[in-house]
């Protein structure tokens, strides 16, 4: 992962995010029912997209790691988990801030928010495992299995939570999808925002991934250094011994 690639991707990300901000605050019209608060939507949804996509990446990289055994895949899984966790947290926070003026409550057991909460818990478990088990040999395999099971579980979670919410008499009116976007400008803004966040996600992944790779390189050099030092000590020992 060259620093040049990271630099240019950073520039592109910045440009796209700037475009997205402009569109959200200047270009797109205000939604009739919810007022200006609805603009949170244009960053809230891309955060959710990144959170779920990153989790899929955790599982896929984990799978490749189990299959191929190359450390890069494990590093990619760890990096994805961190980045995904960041955006998952943002989904919950922005969702909560959005809910308050619209529904009068900081938290609602809306099916999407609930699913995201469970995803957040899965992320939390995965990252806690990573941090606590850092020194354990084969932690990568452990994490990979957890990631795969959790990701396979997500579709089941989505279905069961949705069923849970519809059978339950609706105390809270479920959000009207938010995809009932009438104005084409809204759709355009959403698409730009999604792309910007995707670029941002990839860029953050590259940055985090490179710290992990550098850490691995440091460990490797450390080993080489220890070997070289041992050889030095051995040589000087022989000099003393022979004289």
């Amino acid at each position, binding site marked *: 992962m060259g620093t040049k690639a990271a630099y240019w991707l950073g520039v592109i990300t910045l440009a796209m995010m700037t475009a997205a901000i402009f569109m959200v605050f200047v270009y797109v019209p205000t939604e009739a029912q919810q*007022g*200006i*608060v609805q*603009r*949170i939507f244009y*960053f*809230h949804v891309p*955060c959710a997209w990144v959170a779920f996509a990153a989790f899929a990446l955790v599982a896929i990289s984990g799978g490749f790691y189990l299959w191929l055994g190359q450390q890069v895949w494990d590093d990619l899984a760890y990096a994805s988990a961190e980045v995904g966790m*960041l955006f998952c*947290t*943002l989904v919950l*926070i*922005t969702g909560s*801030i*959005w809910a*308050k*003026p619209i529904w009068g409550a900081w938290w609602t057991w809306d099916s999407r928010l609930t699913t995201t909460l469970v995803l957040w818990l899965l992320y939390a478990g995965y990252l806690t495992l990573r941090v606590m088990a850092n020194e354990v040999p084969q932690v990568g395999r452990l994490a990979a299995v957890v990631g795969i099971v959790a990701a396979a579980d997500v579709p089941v979670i989505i279905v069961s939570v949705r069923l849970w919410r519809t059978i339950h008499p609706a105390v809270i009116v479920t959000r009207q999808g938010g995809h009932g976007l009438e104005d084409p400008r809204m759709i355009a803004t959403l698409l730009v925002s999604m792309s910007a966040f995707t670029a*941002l996600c990839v860029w*953050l992944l590259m*940055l*985090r991934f*490179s*710290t992990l790779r*550098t*850490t691995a*390189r*440091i460990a490797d*050099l*450390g080993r*080489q*250094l220890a*070997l*070289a*030092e*041992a*050889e*030095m000590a*051995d*040589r000087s020992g*022989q*000099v003393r011994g022979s004289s």
Partner: protein
Amino acid sequence: MENLSYLFVAYSIIFAAIVLYVMFLWRRQARLDSRLRGLEIQLNEIRDELAADQPKPMTTASRSVS
């Protein structure tokens, strides 16, 4: 404009989180890079010394170390 404060807080949090994370990663990478350079320098020094000693006859003992 009603609810402007909610909008403002939401976007502020998003940007603050992203910027903080980027800064955290940047500084960590810088620290790791300097440590890496330090190790590389050390390793090269020792390797130069070992190479300089090379004319000495290699006994079986030292050969087995590497």
